[in-house]
């Protein structure tokens, strides 16, 4: 960190000594994580490990109790609006309005992010998630899987350099998971920095450059994908998952 509290800017995400408490319960403790530009990191962990709290803090939806978080060199506590321009968040909730059409939802969020050439960008992202035919349908009439694809389109309408994915496949049927995964794969193929939380080991490892296991609010394991033996990793993950029960 430099004197102004901003990060060095060399990393897309710099987390130092991050902590989050809810009363006496510590959701996150002493998290240190650095994610390079264009790197894809998957965070695994049992329920209650602190994955969603981490994503909420990275996305500025929640304030940390301790530590600093810098995204692209900007401290999220000091310049949250600047940071919000750089991030897109996909969660299991879609953040969409059921009574508005796909087009109206994307136009609304595009205006909020002040997206240039908005009409063109709306058509680009809708084509990317392969839902051009449903552009003028109300979101409430779409299937859960289609809504999640529109939610991904919403998250990247402003072309963010960092995309945060918080269990994006929760509540989807197998067919919808395949469709969403195809979109997420193409998301990972770009220059974007991606941090994803998931319980799906195969997909998480496949999509990432590095994997992290969060357990009881602490990072207990992190390794580059190339050095991971999936069977050993599964054993490690299962050990933490079992001990969390």
């Amino acid at each position: 960190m430099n004197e102004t509290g901003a990060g060095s800017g060399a990393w897309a995400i710099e987390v130092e000594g991050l902590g989050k408490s809810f009363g006496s319960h510590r959701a996150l403790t002493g998290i240190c994580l650095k994610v390079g530009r264009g790197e894809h990191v998957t965070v695994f962990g049992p329920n209650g490990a602190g994955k969603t709290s981490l994503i909420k803090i990275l996305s500025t939806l929640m304030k940390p109790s301790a530590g600093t978080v810098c995204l692209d060199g900007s401290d999220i506590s000091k310049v949250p609006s600047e940071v919000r321009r750089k991030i897109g968040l996909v969660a299991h909730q879609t953040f969409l309005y059921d009574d508005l059409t796909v087009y109206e939802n994307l136009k609304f969020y595009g205006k909020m992010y002040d997206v240039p050439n908005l009409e063109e960008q709306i058509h680009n992202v809708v084509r990317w998630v392969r839902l051009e035919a449903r552009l003028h349908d109300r979101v409430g009439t779409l299937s859960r899987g289609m809504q999640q694809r529109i939610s991904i389109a919403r998250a990247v309408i402003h072309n963010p350099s960092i995309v945060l994915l918080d269990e994006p496949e929760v509540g989807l049927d197998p067919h919808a998971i395949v469709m969403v995964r195809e979109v997420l794969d193409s998301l990972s193929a770009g220059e974007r920095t991606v941090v994803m939380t998931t319980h799906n080991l195969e997909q998480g490892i496949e999509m990432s450059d590095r994997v992290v296991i969060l357990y009881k609010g602490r990072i207990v394991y992190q390794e580059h994908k190339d050095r991971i033996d999936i069977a050993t990793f599964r054993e490690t993950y299962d050990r933490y998952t079992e001990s969390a029960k």
Partner: protein
Amino acid sequence: MSRMYARVFAIFWKDVLSEIRTKEIVTAVLVFALLVLVIFNFAFDPASGTTARIAPGILWVAFTFAGILGLNRVFAIEKENSSLAGLRLCPVDRMVIFWGKLAGSFTFMLVIAAVITPIFLVLFNLPLFLPRLALIIVLATLGFTSVGTLFSALAMNIRARDIMLPILFLPLVVPVIIGAVETTACVLAGGPWSDMLTWLEIMIAFDIIYLVVATLMFEFVIEE
């Protein structure tokens, strides 16, 4: 600055579009307000001399209690699919979100007032052309919705929000409602401007205080 207004308008227009399609707020509030007016119309004889004294109270009781129904729904739209989180992710000042939501609730309440006021005037045999009453409605609605929008956001995550909203909100908005009743009584009695000036000033002062305080408080209300 123009970008800020464009974003306020985007939130306002999003709420208007949703309301045009669902009609959740306007229908419920209108039906409730009309029922109150009709019941009072049967309870009091509109031909008697008491009309001018009780009519202002009836109008503002109908407006206030029906309005609370509407305020309960202002942030309900943001709860579905956690859309408020989507709004909070946007790179905008929280003030923009508040003003956008306020513009929506202010407009809905004005539409409701525009429908129930002529019906009220007809039911109670009062003159239909009362331009000063329009000014009172605008001032009262602004104060009512400024505090109401803030408390609607506050009550959004409370389990018993339908009960809690009026309990929290009504004591604060009472000065504006009393002002509205007093000035409406003056208008219905054909009194001069000077008789209602003090109450108008009180309403304007409360509107300004409510707007400023609610704008400043909103950030703390919606943060996790």
